[in-house]
C-alpha cells in the first residue's frame, strides 16, 4: 500500500471550454502583427520587393483616399457584395425553410443543394458572363450562387433543430401554420441562420474579389489585380487590407445582430 499522503486539496479539473472575450486583445494582436511587419522590413529580413513597409502601404492608402479612388472601388465592391449576397441569402433561406418544412422539398431540393454546394462558383462566372453579359449581373449571379448553398443548408439545419415540442405546443393551441413558422420556427432557427450569415458573407467576399479580378474596371479585386500587374506591392497590400477590413466590418455587424436577436439565450 502507498503511504498516506495526508490532508490536501482536491485538484481542480473544471477549467477551460468557456472562452470569454477580452476587448483589448484583438487590437493588440493586430498591433503586434504590424510591429512584427515593421521590424521585419526595417531590418531587411524581408526584401522590399516582396513586402513593402507598413509606412509605404499607409501612404498608398492615404493617396487613394485623397484622390477619391478608394471610394470608387469600395462603392463598386460593397454594392456587388450587398446585392449578390441579399439575392443568394434570401433564395437560400427560402429553399432551406422549404426543405426543413416540406417532405416534397426535402426529397427534391435537398439532393440538389448538396450537389450544388461543392461546385467552385467562380468556375461558373464565364457561363454567367455568356448569360448576363460582362456587367454587374454576372457578378451578382456568381456571388448569389455562392451564398445560396451555405444559407440553404444553414436554414435547413436551423429549422430541423427547432424543438418539436414547441411546434406541438403551438399546434395544440390551434395556432395557424403560417404563425407557427413566423413565431416559432423562424426565431428558433435564428442562431443557425446567423452562423450561416457569417459563413456566407465570407464566401461572398471571396467570390466578389475573384469575380472582380476576372473582369471589372472598379472594385477592390480589380485594384489588387492591377497593382499586382504593375508590381505596386504597396497598393496591392493596401487592397488586401481593405478586404480584411470589409471582413471585420461584416463580422462586427453580425455580432450586433446576434446580440439584438439572440439576447434570450
Amino acid at each position, binding site marked *: 500500500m502507498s503511504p498516506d499522503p495526508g490532508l490536501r486539496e482536491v485538484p481542480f479539473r473544471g477549467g477551460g471550454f468557456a472562452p470569454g472575450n477580452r476587448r483589448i486583445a484583438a487590437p493588440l494582436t493586430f498591433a503586434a502583427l504590424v510591429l512584427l511587419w515593421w521590424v521585419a522590413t526595417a531590418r531587411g529580413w524581408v526584401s522590399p520587393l516582396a513586402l513593402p513597409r507598413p509606412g509605404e502601404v499607409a501612404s498608398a492608402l492615404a493617396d487613394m483616399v485623397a484622390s477619391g479612388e478608394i471610394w470608387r472601388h469600395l462603392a463598386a465592391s460593397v454594392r456587388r457584395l450587398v446585392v449578390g449576397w441579399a439575392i443568394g441569402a434570401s433564395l437560400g433561406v427560402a429553399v432551406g425553410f422549404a426543405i426543413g418544412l416540406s417532405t416534397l422539398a426535402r426529397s427534391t431540393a435537398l439532393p440538389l443543394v448538396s450537389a450544388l454546394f461543392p461546385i467552385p462558383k467562380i468556375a461558373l462566372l464565364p457561363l454567367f458572363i455568356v448569360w448576363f453579359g460582362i456587367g454587374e449581373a454576372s457578378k451578382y449571379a456568381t456571388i448569389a450562387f455562392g451564398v445560396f448553398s451555405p444559407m440553404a443548408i444553414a436554414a435547413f439545419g436551423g429549422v430541423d433543430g427547432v424543438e418539436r*415540442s*414547441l411546434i*406541438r*405546443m*403551438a*399546434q*395544440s*393551441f*390551434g*395556432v*395557424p401554420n403560417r*404563425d407557427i413558422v413566423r*413565431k*416559432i420556427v423562424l*426565431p428558433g432557427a435564428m442562431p443557425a441562420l446567423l452562423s450561416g450569415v457569417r459563413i456566407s458573407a465570407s464566401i461572398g467576399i471571396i467570390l466578389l474579389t475573384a469575380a472582380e479580378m476576372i473582369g471589372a474596371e472598379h472594385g477592390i479585386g480589380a485594384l489588387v489585380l492591377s497593382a499586382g500587374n504593375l508590381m505596386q506591392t504597396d497598393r496591392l497590400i493596401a487592397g488586401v487590407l481593405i478586404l480584411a477590413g470589409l471582413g471585420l466590418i461584416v463580422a462586427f455587424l453580425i455580432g450586433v445582430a446576434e446580440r439584438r436577436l439572440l439576447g*434570450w*439565450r
Partner: protein
Amino acid sequence: MELIAEKVRQTYGSLDVLDDVDLVIGSGEIVAVLGPSGCGKSTLLRLLGGLERPTSGRVLLSGAAPAGSLNPLTYVFQDFALVPWRSVAENVALPLEHLAMTAAERAARVADALARVDLVDFGGTYPKQLSGGMKQRTAIARALVVEPAIFLMDEPLSALDAQTRDLLMDDLKRLWTETRFAAVYVTHNVAEAVQLGHRIVVLSRRPGRIRDVVAIDLPLAERHEGHPDLVAASRRIWASIRDEAAIAERELIDVA
C-alpha cells in the same frame, strides 16, 4: 362537454403502445391516468387532444364547449414548452394572438391569467430566469388564458422538486375549485393521482391497457395527506400495480 375514447389502439410500426382503451372524461371531472414510464400515457394524451390519430378506435367529443372557451382541449406539458425568446407575458399571450380580439382585451386576459397563478410581477421575465415551478405556473397560465373545457396534463409536476410539487399541487386544487374544469392528469406518481383524481385509471405496462379504475369521492379541498380515503385508494392502486408486476414476472419465467 365530455371527451370519450372508444377502443383506442395505437401502434408504432411493430410496437403496440395502447390496447383497447375506453375512457370517458365527464365535465368538471379530473381523471388521473396512472401508469409506469413507457406504458403509453403521453401517447394517450396526444390522441385525446387530437395531436395524433389513433391506429384504430375513435376519440369523440360530446356536447358543446362552454361559452367563452377559446381552446376547449388544452395541454400542459411535462417540459413546460415555454418559448425561450418570449417573456412570461408574451408566452401567455401566444395562444391569443391568432384570435380576433382587441389588444386591450388580450392584455386583460393575460393579466388575469398571470394573477391566477401569482405571477403578476414576472410578466417581463424570460423563461431562462425562472425556477422550475414558475415555468410550470407560466405554462398553466398559458393554458388558463384560453379557458379550456378540458385540461390535458402530461406529468406537469414530474420535472419539479418535491417542495415545489406540493405547492403546485395546492395551486391546481385551488384552480379547480375556482373553475371546475375537466382534466386528464397523467402521472406515474400514486400520491399525485390520489390527491387530484376524481377517478384514477390504472394502466398496465406497455401495451397500455386499463387495469383498474378507482373513484375517490372526497372533495379536493379535504384531501390532506394521510386521509383514510386516500390511504385506502392508494392501497388498492398499489395492489393492482403489484398484481401487474407479478404477472410480468410470471411471463418472464414462462419465457425462460
